[in-house]
């Protein structure tokens, strides 16, 4: 089956297939690989109707730029009249009253939405084991975790259950599972994609982004979903560039890598060797790749956890057992309605993060933890953006290792948090980052390579990533 939108559209326009046939194919694949548990719900009939509508538009020459693309959406994105649960019991049965801007733009560009995808509860996790609806299995080895939190989104693409997906990335939730599943995933610059209709985890970190088999497809999707939206006042107001028409990167580039990232003892030695060899190959092609110091390595994850849990504790206060979602049957008064509904409705990791967030925001601790982390965030952001005054891209691993066994890290929150060691920096700084498939480990599993660019440089990031993708596949 076709791996990219370009191949798909070529076949459709040559009359070799139709959007309906493609949708039927993906529906079959979803049934065949149902045990992977990637989809929480498949919009079967509706997807076929939409596909039929798209085929008519193709026939009369009015089809949008994503016609032919069958796409799944992470279960934190609202789609009017459809269920959305953030993989949480607390939203059991909840049906969206409106459609997320990113989803609406996909529909307007004639993509077919095939279903909603499993993820860690409220996008909190790095293994997809925090879903209330069961683990997602890694398509290469079913005993392994696919990564998270956009685990279902990564597996759906890797297993060929749809052509592309939307994920969300707060600290690596697109790039980490993309790396572990061998696909491409991008977190755009903070403020590029409207968060309207995206169930909030940590609002100053969250971004929606594309996951696909190629950089080109990520560019095609991002081009459609990016840009100002009157429902999200945190967006960059400038109209974004046409990413797909800027994918040709030429000439030598200036890259940097942080020594501490490659010297980190948690990094798999094979991935380290791969990265160093890749850096040499880039140098041999005439690019500059300099080794720089990064004095904040030990502080990125602590900064991330203080700030994201604080924001989460505030965002998740809306789940009160009264206005929507789950209400405990054992509640007897107002206070027990809140407490029991929330305690029974939320999973363990979500409760842990609400508690930590409440602590860092509570009277007496606010300055020592929350304000302190906001200050360190500025130091990390300024340091990183200073690097981009002299270099166009940072190159680094996406993950410290390959996919790990289900249950392998779930008993130790700190071990799990360190999964995101290479991805959180981009979210702390609000800058764009992309993970593309790198090598294959001797254990047979894929791992990604990550590129990071300065704020607003999404177009050149995609262009260089496309070039690196071609280089790696040589």
């Amino acid at each position, binding site marked *: 089956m076709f791996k990219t939108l370009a191949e798909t559209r070529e076949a459709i326009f040559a009359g070799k297939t139709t959007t309906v046939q493609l949708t039927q194919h993906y529906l079959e694949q979803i049934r065949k690989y149902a045990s992977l548990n990637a989809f929480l719900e498949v919009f079967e009939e509706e997807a076929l109707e939409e596909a039929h509508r798209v085929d008519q538009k193709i026939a009369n020459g009015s089809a949008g730029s994503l016609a032919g693309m069958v796409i799944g959406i992470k279960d934190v994105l609202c789609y009017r009249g459809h269920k959305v649960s953030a993989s949480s019991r607390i939203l059991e049965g909840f049906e969206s*009253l409106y459609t997320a801007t990113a989803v609406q733009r996909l529909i307007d560009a004639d993509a077919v939405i095939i279903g909603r995808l499993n993820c860690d509860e409220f996008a909190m996790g790095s293994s997809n084991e925090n879903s209330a609806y069961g683990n997602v299995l890694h398509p290469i080895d079913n005993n392994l975790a696919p990564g998270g939190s956009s685990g279902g989104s990564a597996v759906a693409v890797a297993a060929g259950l749809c052509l592309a997906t939307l994920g969300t990335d707060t600290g690596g939730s697109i790039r980490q599972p993309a790396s572990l599943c061998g696909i491409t995933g991008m977190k755009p610059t903070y403020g590029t994609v409207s968060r309207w209709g995206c169930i909030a985890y940590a609002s100053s970190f969250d971004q929606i982004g594309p996951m696909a088999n190629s950089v080109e497809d990520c560019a095609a999707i991002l081009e459609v979903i990016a840009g100002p939206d009157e429902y999200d006042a*945190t967006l960059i107001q400038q109209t974004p560039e046409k990413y797909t028409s800027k994918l040709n990167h030429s000439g030598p580039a200036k890259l940097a890598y942080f020594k501490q990232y490659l010297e980190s003892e948690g990094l798999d030695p094979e991935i380290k060797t791969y990265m160093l060899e890749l850096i040499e190959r880039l140098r041999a092609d005439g690019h500059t790749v300099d080794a720089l110091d990064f004095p904040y390595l030990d502080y990125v994850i*602590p900064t991330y956890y203080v700030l994201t849990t604080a924001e989460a504790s505030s965002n998740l206060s809306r789940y009160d057992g009264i*206005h*929507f979602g789950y209400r405990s049957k054992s509640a007897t008064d107002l206070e027990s309605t809140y407490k029991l509904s929330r305690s029974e409705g939320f999973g363990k990791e979500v409760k842990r993060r609400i508690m930590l967030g*409440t602590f860092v925001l509570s009277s007496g601790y606010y300055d020592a*933890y929350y304000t*302190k982390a906001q*200050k360190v*965030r500025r130091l990390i952001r300024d340091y990183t953006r200073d690097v981009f005054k002299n270099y166009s891209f940072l190159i680094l691993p996406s993950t410290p290792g390959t996919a790990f066994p289900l249950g392998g890290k779930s008993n130790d929150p700190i071990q799990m948090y360190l999964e995101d060691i290479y991805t959180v920096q981009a979210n702390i700084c609000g800058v764009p980052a992309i993970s593309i498939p790198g090598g294959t480990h001797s254990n047979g599993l894929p791992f990604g390579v990550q590129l990071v660019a300065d704020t607003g440089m999404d177009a050149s990031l995609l262009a260089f990533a496309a070039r690196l993708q071609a280089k790696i596949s040589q």
Partner: protein
Amino acid sequence: MKVNEQLIGHLSHLSRLQFDEQAGQEMVHDLNRILGFVEKLEEVNTEGVEPLIYMTDETNILRDDAVVQTITQDEALKNAPRKDSDYFRVPRFIDQD
């Protein structure tokens, strides 16, 4: 910072959560580990550094204050676990006398 059961009790009330004894113990253990980990931030000199709060350079993104009906009352009540035709229903919280 040392987290004890008393602090967990206070935080769980603020969070409108409750834990049984075993879950409370686990929470004491987990928060102690996580706080021990994030307290590394104390090593960073942040004197004179302003907290970073806004992630883009945009300021005052405003739109017209136009009246638009985005959802109806029926829709607003649609997902409520308990409701009547006009209201969200909650347990009684004012004494009858």
